[in-house]
């Protein structure tokens, strides 16, 4: 009997934990989408480029490749002109690799739903996660999408236990050579139609490991992702919002 009271107490303490609107959430403090000012760089200054650990920044014109960016804030701190600052924006996904490059007047464009993916998976999308050298940062955030807070299950999006049951493959990690074959086999094991989602700087560009000879990224030459989600690791809101965009869900509530 006492145990029942304890269970009720836990249930009451739980309350309502879900983020009601995944489109309109406010992750206080999150270091996300960079805001780029239009003021010109100091002449000849290359400090941000020199400090960037992943060569994500190009000058003339100033751009940041969010597919490489690890959101370490170093460029913002080093810039004498305060040209760049990181805001709390978590809409950090793109349908194309090139779309992740942002600059002056070149914001991250809104994602248009993918017709065939929406038609087939709009109401039910089952995902398989494969970590190929992921550091467990992206993996924990992918897991978090399914927890009681982010609860992507409300949109019919779930993580499934077997590639045989999956429609989409969430790729995290820079694709280590030792994992390249298992990754390809997993994708081949998924029934058609299917697609790839690249989550995090490592999956998208190799991230901090990009120059390592222990990687084998040829998988991406064969299977181009249909969605890229930037971050190191991406916030669960970034991944969920990218998925909702891809599936053509207007609203972040259910």
């Amino acid at each position, binding site marked *: 009997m006492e145990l029942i009271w304890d269970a009720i107490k836990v249930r009451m303490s739980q309350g309502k934990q879900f983020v009601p609107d995944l489109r309109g959430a406010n992750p206080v403090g999150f270091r996300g989408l960079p805001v780029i000012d239009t003021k010109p760089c100091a002449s000849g200054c290359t400090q941000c480029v020199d400090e960037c650990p992943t060569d994500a920044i190009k000058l003339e014109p100033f751009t940041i490749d969010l597919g490489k960016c690890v959101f370490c804030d170093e460029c913002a701190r080093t810039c004498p002109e305060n040209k760049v600052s990181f805001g709390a924006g978590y809409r950090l996904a793109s349908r194309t690799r090139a779309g992740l490059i942002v600059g002056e007047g070149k914001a991250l464009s809104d994602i248009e739903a993918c017709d065939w993916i929406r038609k087939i998976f709009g109401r039910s999308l089952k995902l398989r996660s494969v*970590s190929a050298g992921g*550091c467990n940062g992206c993996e924990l955030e992918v897991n978090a999408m399914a927890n009681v807070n982010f609860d992507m299950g409300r949109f019919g999006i779930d993580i499934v236990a077997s590639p045989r049951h999956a429609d989409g493959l969430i790729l995290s990690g820079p694709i*280590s050579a030792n994992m390249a074959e298992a990754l390809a086999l997993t994708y081949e094991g998924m029934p058609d139609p299917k697609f790839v989602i690249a989550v995090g700087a490592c999956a998208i560009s190799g991230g901090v490991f990009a120059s390592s000879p222990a990687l084998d990224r040829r998988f991406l030459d064969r299977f181009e992702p249909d969605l890229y989600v930037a971050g190191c690791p991406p916030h669960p809101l970034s991944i969920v919002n990218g998925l909702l965009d891809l599936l053509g869900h207007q609203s972040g509530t259910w």
Partner: protein
Amino acid sequence: MAIIVANHPNVLTTKINEVETLGYKSFRAKVEEQIASGNRLLSFFGSPIQGPEKQGVTTPKNVALNAVFLATGRGLIHFRGIAEAAEEYKPLTNKFSFMHCFEREIHDQYGLPMTGHPWLKPIRFEGKQLGKMNDYRFYKLEGKEVHEVAVGPVHAGVIEPGHFRFMCHGEKVYHLEIHLGYQHRGAEALLTKTEPRKISPLIESIAGDTAVAYTVAFCRGWEALCGISVSPEVECIRGIALELERVAMHLVGLGGLATDVAFLPGSSTYGRLRTSVINLSMRLCGSRFGRSWFRPGQLRFAFTEKHKADIRKTIDQVQKDIALINRLFRQSTTVRHRLCTTGTVPTELAKSIGIVGMTGRASGVACDTRGELKGGVYAAHPIEVVTEPDGDCWSRGLIRIREIDLSLDWILKIVNSLSEVSENERVEYSPLPNACVVSVEEGWRGEVVQYIETDSSGKIAHFKVQDPSIRNWFGLAQAVKDNAIYDFPICNKSFDLSYCGNDL
């Protein structure tokens, strides 16, 4: 062994030519002597001898074997041994089982013969072994009704890849061989050639769930080499970050255990409590994983009265709610039934195979560098080291529950003792040339050890990283023995080891 910088207890800096260097025989004797005296082996690794002969093939003469011991009350001890010829090597594993992973790694990385080593399985299939994971022949049992089960590298959950090969009779596991290396990204080689200023983002990605402990270990080591000191207040913030990471990841572990035994209130409650804790980290530094919070000599985000109030409020709520779910978790028959006496690693076994950190403490081994070294903020504000005697999955759950409670109380104590701490400007680095440093930090899994060596111009010549997981994976293999194969997931979750921390 001269110490050149006023040392933090968690680091040991030495000029390379002042590191006690012995011939292999005396080195081996000294290692045995240290073990016999009760000092705890923290690390054992190879490093290339710098100099003109460094280029080209590795020979015993240009590889130093480094031993790092922890002498309680006296701190870290580092000495090295160099063999004249390959024939001299005589694996220590035959005498001390816990040496197995270290000698295997040295064999993999330097090709040194370890003739007579009982199990020279590649640690992570690096270097020449890259891409050859499928060629490996697993240990086999034969007999009527004996069967083999292969699991992974891709698993049912969202976890990192690793392969598990079971030899079973019916559902009973007789032998488990763990096959790792899928996550190998060449991290040590990258660390050695990365500009020091850009190392922090890389070190945070070695094992992203332990980003804070890795960064703090690197900061301390690099600070010692550069003669930089940080204020006690910055050490306090590092302590807060470390304990928040511990609490968050212990909550992941408890949530995972609850999920794996189908105890759904635990699964959802521990999960959302973790969200509260990591969102607190995000409000303090912009990242749910504490990334970019610290750099050598630098606290990058100011700590204000607003943050203090936020921490108090968040922790107060977490403490109230966690007490309720812990009570239910501990009383629940279904949880106890599945976890008690499952996956047991008794104390003696844990000691002999060298299980460290939280997992070791759950097996009654009181190894915790926060208590053993009392470095940084743990000197003025010690934290209690707890152990559980039984070493089963239940103990590994309980130790998390107890450590969460202790860490939350401890954080509140630190917050109360602290006024506002301003962020620091970045500092310039001028590392000592021809020096080396060992740095140790107790992450949530156990001790993270790093070794950095500089050359004559102060550039990094060698960078070695050690996650506690490299020692503990063998513990999981032992824990599963004689258990039923269906209990493997809870055994694995209860250890919650890092694949990428092992694979580097």
